[in-house]
């Protein structure tokens, strides 16, 4: 709370004196309504947001901050049946300072750092967590900023980048904790987050450059998997029969080695991205922690005309040291319940169509399909520019597929959205 108060004071009070030149004020006012499609709640979210952005800059330094004043009449985010916010919330989205030298730059503060060159699925993009409960047309709604120090050193065509993330932030994922598993009662032990200490801070490195007509980069991330690991403990045995299960959520350390590229030829853009996830389950014997795996995405974009672009991507995740029957048996031994375990290889295709009709209207349709279970995610967004600075977006996040499949499990989270946004600059 004290940090928030300080940030707000800094935001309104001190910053103009620190950076007196080139003050820039702006932001937007947005009304949003997110009616649920498969849930007993009428609205997932309903409210109004005022975002104000302040920036000041000189040749050697730049300050930027955006502050959200969010009034929500309805919000059922977070875990199921757990209201996350209702009423007024005020929070800084981003607040950072840039410092510039001849070949070196630094950014300090709360910020977004997105890596990768493919669309929508980015194996090398592991710094900012996702808010999977709040996917809309606005990236700052579904990506969460991190407090970090970022440095870039430029040498010819090379860009050496280092990021130090001071505080771990996990993904926000809708999780329904079962009260029973078969005949067993489930006791939730809660979530264990990494302790706030220096040795637990995360860092990432990246080298980017250009060869012929190809932009490429190599990257490395050391930190925690932002996806939770769910662990079950069978306790205690009474006359050889387990009486209940204990359930705990943890976050495990991970190292990620990545590579990506992009090149163009005529109306085509070719992209590729791959990352090796070195997890804590190095020998594949821990059924709760994900096995080491390779995740890659290859895509092609075709700019058919100024009004129409088409994108297609294929992605695959391959688990190493993985034995499906061993995993199934171990789950059965632990929980006394059959459990649907991962496949050794999972393949996904994504498509993205963007079409502009007339001068002010555009349609975007993103689709993701898992090939094995045929479960899918659809995100259609229709945008209309009503006037300069006034935009209306309508769309839906639609999850579907068999029960137990990744997107099938998220059916409840399907929702529509309507947003009216007025951007301003003072």
């Amino acid at each position, binding site marked *: 709370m004290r940090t928030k108060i300080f940030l707000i004071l800094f935001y309104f009070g001190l910053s103009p004196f620190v950076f007196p030149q080139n003050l820039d004020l702006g932001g*937007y006012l947005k009304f949003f309504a997110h009616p649920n499609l498969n849930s007993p709640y009428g609205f997932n979210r309903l409210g109004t947001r005022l975002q104000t952005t302040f920036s000041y800059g000189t040749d050697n330094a730049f300050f930027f901050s955006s502050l959200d004043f969010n009034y929500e009449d309805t919000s059922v985010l977070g875990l199921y049946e757990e209201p996350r916010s209702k009423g007024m919330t005020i929070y800084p989205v981003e607040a950072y300072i840039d410092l510039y030298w001849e070949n070196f*730059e630094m950014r300090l503060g709360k910020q977004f750092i*997105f890596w990768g060159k493919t669309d929508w699925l980015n194996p090398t993009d592991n710094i900012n967590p996702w808010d999977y409960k709040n996917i809309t047309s606005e*990236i700052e709604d579904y990506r969460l900023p991190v407090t970090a120090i970022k440095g*870039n050193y430029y040498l010819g065509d090379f860009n050496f980048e280092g990021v130090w993330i001071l505080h771990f932030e996990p993904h926000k994922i809708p999780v329904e904790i079962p009260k029973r598993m078969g005949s067993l009662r489930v006791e939730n032990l809660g979530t264990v987050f990494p302790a706030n200490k220096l040795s637990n801070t995360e860092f990432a490195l990246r080298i980017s450059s250009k060869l012929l007509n190809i932009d490429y980069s190599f990257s490395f991330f050391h930190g925690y998997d932002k996806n939770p690991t769910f662990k079950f403990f069978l306790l205690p045995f009474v006359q050889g029969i387990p009486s209940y299960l204990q359930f705990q959520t943890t976050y495990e350390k991970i190292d990620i080695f990545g590579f990506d590229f992009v090149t163009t030829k005529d109306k085509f*853009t070719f992209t590729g991205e791959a990352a090796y996830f070195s997890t804590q389950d190095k020998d594949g014997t821990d059924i709760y922690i994900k096995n080491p795996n390779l995740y890659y995405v290859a895509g092609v974009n075709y700019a058919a005309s100024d009004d129409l672009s088409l994108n297609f991507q294929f992605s695959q995740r391959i688990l190493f040291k993985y034995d499906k029957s061993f995993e199934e048996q171990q789950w059965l031994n632990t929980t006394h319940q059959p459990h649907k375990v991962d496949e050794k290889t999972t393949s996904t295709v994504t498509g993205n169509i963007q079409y502009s009709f007339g001068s002010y209207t555009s349609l975007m349709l993103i689709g993701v399909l898992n090939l094995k279970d045929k479960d899918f995610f659809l995100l259609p967004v229709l945008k209309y*520019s009503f006037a300069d600075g006034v935009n209306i977006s309508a769309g839906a996040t639609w999850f579907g597929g068999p029960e137990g499949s990744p997107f099938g499990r998220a059916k409840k989270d399907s929702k529509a959205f309507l947003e009216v946004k007025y951007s301003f600059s003072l």
Partner: protein
Amino acid sequence: MFRFKYLLFILFSVWVVTLAQEPSGKAIMEKALNKSTWKYMQGDVELILINSQGQKRVRKIKMFSRKRNENESDMLMRFVAPPDVKNIAFLTIEHSNADDERYLYLPALRRVKRISSSGKGGNFMSSDFTYYDIGKPKLNDWTYKRLEDEKVDGFDCYKIECLPANKQIAEDTGYRKIIRWIRKDVYVTVRSKYFDNGLKEWKILEVPEIKNISGVWFQTDMIMKDIQSGHSSEMRFTNISVNKKLPDKFFTKRFLTRLR
């Protein structure tokens, strides 16, 4: 008889000399293309988009450009207004023997995206100007035929018919024919008519204002009307500064993301 032959010879000589002094279509275009001597240029652009119902949208852009050599240049543009597109930035690195590199910075996504160069015929910032229209044409991409001179807004102009030198140029630009009116005194195009692949009249460029800035003539106001769709776009240039050196790093992805 001798006198008559002599007179005929003199008249023929005068006609040949006169003809030799009249520049050809290609020579006029060459002079028009090579007259400008700027290496660096920066300025403010107001781009006004007008749809067939007459509704107007105004985009304000800061533009920076440099010529690396005769056939290659770099251009960086950053939107200043309206607020919903503010800070969107666009970088083009031109290559004479390979595809141009194009990068788009979308502040809403906090990402620099490399995009394909959808041909020179692609529309510039959703306007009726194409990238070809605002770039410098290559002399040998077209063949030229001089038509009868005409006046535009009281100024004597050369009238040149330009036909694509090959099919590829026609496909890339979308133009099967261009007729240009070039002012005789300053060698600046002040009107153009563009014809589509069916040789139907497509667009008309009018240049209501040209200015001499630091010895270089610029078209500081250009109106492109799409006759077929009823759209039109106007580009107004102000605060033009010529040959004020910009550092190399300015035309890189690094600077594309800088909000200042």
